[in-house]
C-alpha cells in the first residue's frame, strides 16, 4: 500500500518536467558559485602540475593523501546507483521508483570525479595515457596487468560504460515526453535523443528487457569495482594495516552505506528545491532509512572484524599502526568522530520511525554518514602510510595544505553542479517509472483486506 493521493499522468508530466521547462531564479547564481569553486580548483591543479606536487602536504612516506582518500570516497558514492536501481529493480521493491534516476546519475558523475582524482594525484598526468590506455605506445610495453592500478581503470571504465547505458535506456521514454513538450531546437535535440520512441508495446518490451538485462549484468561489476579499489591497498605488502584480505567486502559494504546515504540526501534536496512532495514521499525516505540500518550494521561488522584481524596477527608493526589509529591524538580523535558519525549517530536515529520520516533528521544523518565515511578512508589510508615500523627514520606525519583542500571541496562542487545542470535538461525523477508505479498502486478491497488490483507480469 502506498501513501499519498493518486496522480494523473498529466500531473506527473507537469510536476516532474518543471525543473526542465522553467528555470528557477536561483538556478544560474548557484551554478555560477559552484563553477567558481571548480575553476579555482582547476587553477590550483594547473599550478600544481606546473610547479610540482611540492605545494601539497604530501611527503615521504605519506605519498598518498587526500587525493586518494577522495578517490575512494567518490567510488563509494557511485555504488548507490546499482544498489538502488539494479538490485532493487530485480528485487521488485516498489519504493525504489523515484530514487533510481538520481542514484544512477549520481553514480556517473561521482565516477567521473573519482577517475579524475588519481590523474590529478600523479606527478605527470599527461603520461597517464601509458597507464589507462591498453596499447604498447613505446617499445612494445603494455600496461602492467599485475598491478591493481591497472585493474582499477578497467573496472571503473566498465562501470562507467554500463551505468551510462543504464541511464540512457531508462531515459528514452522520458526523452519522448520531453520531445512532445518542447518546440524549436530543443524539440529537435530531444527527438534525436528519443530515437523514434512511440511507446508501442514492442518498444516497451525491448526497453524493459534491456533494463532488466543490464541490471543483471551490472551486478558483478557492482561487487568488483570497489573490491578492486580496495585491492589498491590490500595488495600492498609494505604498508601495514593495508595488507588485509577483508578489504574487498569491507569496502563494498562501506560504499553502499555512503552511496545510499548520499542518494537520500540528494532526493531530499530535490524534493525541497523542485517541490516534488508528491513524488519523493516520506515512505520512500523511510524505506531507504530501513535499508540503511541493515547496510550500516553490516558495515560495522566488517569494521570490527578488520581491526580484530589486524590485532590477531600480533605483528608489532601492525599493532603500532592500530595504536596510532585508536590511541594517539589527533588521529584517535578523527577515528572517534568517524565511528560515531558513521554508525552510532545515524543508526540510532534511523531506529525510530519518527526520525526516518523527518526529512531534517534524515538529511543530517546522511551527511553524518558521509563525513564519517570520508574519514574512514582517511583513517585507513594515511596512518597505514605513516609507517610506524622498525625503521624509525622514516616515521612521518601528514598535514594537508590548501591545494588539497580546495581540490577536495571542488569535487563536491563539481558533482553538485553536474547534478543541477543535469536536472535542467533531463528529468531527475523517472516519469515513466512513476507512472508505472501509479498504475500498479490501484487497489481493491476484498473483505477487510486491501490488495493490489494488478499484478506485475513476470
Amino acid at each position: 500500500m502506498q501513501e499519498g493521493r493518486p496522480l494523473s499522468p498529466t500531473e506527473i508530466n507537469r510536476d516532474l518536467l518543471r525543473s526542465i521547462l522553467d528555470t528557477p531564479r536561483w538556478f544560474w547564481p548557484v551554478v555560477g558559485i559552484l563553477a567558481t569553486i571548480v575553476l579555482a580548483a582547476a587553477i590550483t591543479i594547473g599550478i600544481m602540475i606546473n610547479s610540482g606536487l611540492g605545494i601539497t602536504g604530501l611527503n615521504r612516506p605519506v605519498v598518498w593523501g587526500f587525493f586518494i582518500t577522495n578517490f575512494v570516497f567518490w567510488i563509494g558514492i557511485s555504488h548507490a546507483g546499482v544498489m538502488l536501481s539494479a538490485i532493487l529493480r530485480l528485487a521488485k521493491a516498489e519504493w525504489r521508483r523515484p530514487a533510481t534516476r538520481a542514484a544512477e546519475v549520481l553514480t556517473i558523475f561521482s565516477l567521473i570525479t573519482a577517475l579524475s582524482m588519481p590523474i590529478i594525484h600523479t606527478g605527470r598526468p599527461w603520461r597517464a595515457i601509458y597507464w589507462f590506455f591498453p596499447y604498447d605506445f613505446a617499445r612494445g610495453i603494455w600496461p602492467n596487468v599485475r598491478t591493481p592500478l591497472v585493474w582499477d581503470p578497467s573496472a571503473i571504465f566498465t562501470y562507467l560504460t554500463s551505468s551510462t547505458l543504464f541511464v540512457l535506456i531508462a531515459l528514452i521514454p522520458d526523452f519522448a515526453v520531453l520531445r512532445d513538450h518542447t518546440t524549436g531546437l530543443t524539440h529537435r535535440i530531444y527527438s534525436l535523443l528519443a530515437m523514434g520512441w512511440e511507446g508501442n508495446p514492442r518498444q516497451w518490451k525491448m526497453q524493459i528487457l534491456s533494463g532488466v538485462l543490464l541490471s543483471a549484468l551490472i551486478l558483478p561489476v557492482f561487487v568488483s569495482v570497489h573490491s578492486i579499489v580496495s585491492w589498491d591497498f590490500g595488495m600492498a605488502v609494505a604498508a601495514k594495516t593495508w595488507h588485509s584480505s577483508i578489504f574487498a567486502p569491507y569496502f563494498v559494504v562501506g560504499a553502499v552505506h555512503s552511496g545510499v546515504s548520499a542518494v537520500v540526501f540528494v532526493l531530499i534536496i530535490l524534493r525541497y528545491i523542485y517541490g516534488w512532495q508528491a513524488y519523493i514521499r516520506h515512505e520512500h525516505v523511510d524505506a531507504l532509512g530501513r535499508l540503511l540500518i541493515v547496510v550500516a550494521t553490516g558495515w560495522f561488522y566488517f569494521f570490527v572484524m578488520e581491526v580484530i584481524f589486524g590485532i590477531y596477527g600480533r605483528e608489532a608493526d601492525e599493532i603500532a599502526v592500530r595504536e596510532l589509529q585508536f590511541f594517539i591524538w589527533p588521529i584517535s580523535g578523527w577515528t572517534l568522530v568517524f565511528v560515531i558519525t558513521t554508525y552510532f549517530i545515524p543508526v540510532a536515529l534511523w531506529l525510530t520511525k519518527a526520525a526516518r520520516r523527518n526529512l531534517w533528521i534524515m538529511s543530517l544523518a546522511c551527511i553524518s554518514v558521509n563525513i564519517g565515511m570520508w574519514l574512514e578512508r582517511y583513517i585507513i589510508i594515511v596512518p597505514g602510510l605513516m609507517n610506524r615500523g622498525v625503521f624509525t627514520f622514516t616515521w612521518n606525519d601528514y598535514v594537508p595544505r590548501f591545494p588539497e583542500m580546495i581540490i577536495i571541496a571542488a569535487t563536491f562542487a563539481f558533482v553538485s553542479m553536474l547534478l543541477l545542470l543535469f536536472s535542467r535538461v533531463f528529468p531527475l525523477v523517472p516519469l515513466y517509472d512513476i507512472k508505472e508505479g501509479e498504475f500498479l498502486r490501484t487497489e481493491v478491497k476484498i473483505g477487510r483486506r486491501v490488495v493490489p488490483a494488478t499484478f506485475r507480469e513476470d
Partner: protein
Amino acid sequence: MVTNRIDHKWGMVVDLDKCTGCQACVVACQAENNLPINTKDFFLQKRAYEWIRIERYWEGEYPNVKARFIPVLCQHCENAPCEPVCPVYATYRNDDGLNVQIYNRCVGTRYCINNCPYQVRFFNFWQPNWPERLKNQLNPDVTIRTRGITEKCTFCVQRLRRAELQVERVSGERLNDEKLKAGNYAPACTQACPTNALMFGDQNDAESKIRPYFDDVNTFDIHHEEERTTRGYRLLEEINTRPSIIYLKKVDQYPLNEDEDHV
C-alpha cells in the same frame, strides 16, 4: 650487437661492525647521482633525497648510551614489492640483477614508494634545482630527473656500464671483482667508504669476495638463522623480498651494562 657480455647479479655486503656513521657514502652518492641539495627546507618538508642514508639509533639511556649506525639504500630485491605494482613497468629487474627505474616511463602514481618496505624510493616533489655555481659539477653520465617521478639508488649503473664497456667489450674478458677494483669501478658509496664497510661484487662470480656471505645466507634462510656461519643477515628478511644486500651484524666487544643504568 654482438658482445661477450655475461649476465651479472650485482650485490653488496654492508659490514655494520666497520661502519662509523661518517656519512661519506651519503655525500658521495649525492655528488655522483646529481641529487638535488638537501636544504633545510627539504628536510622540514620531509622530502629529502637520501638514496643512501645512515640511520642512527641510540642504545641505552643517557649518559650510558651507544650510537648504532645502519646504512640503508635500495636493496635491489630479487622479489621486489615495488615492481609488480607499477602500472607502466617503469621499474623492473634487469639482467644485471638490478632493480632499475625508467624515469621517462614513470607516471608518478607513487605506488612503488608505498610498497617499498625499506622506504628507499624518492619522489621528485619539486623540479630539481642547483645554485648557478654548482651547475657545472653535475655528473654528465647521469640524467637530471624532472619533477613528478620516482627515483632511487641504481647501484651507480652508469659506472657499471662504463666498466662493462671497457672490460667485456674492449678486452673481451669477464668483469669481476679484481677488474672492478683495478678500474676503480664500484658504486660511489662503496668507493667513498673509508673503513671498507661496504663491499660490492658479483653474486654470480664464484671468486667474488661477497660470495661466501650470499652462499651462507641463501643456504640457511630465516628459519635456520642460527646455523649461519657468517654474521650475515638481510633486512626485514621475514617478508621474503630477497634483497641483494647483506648486512653483517655488529659484534660489540663492550656491550652496555644494563645494571649501570640504575646506579
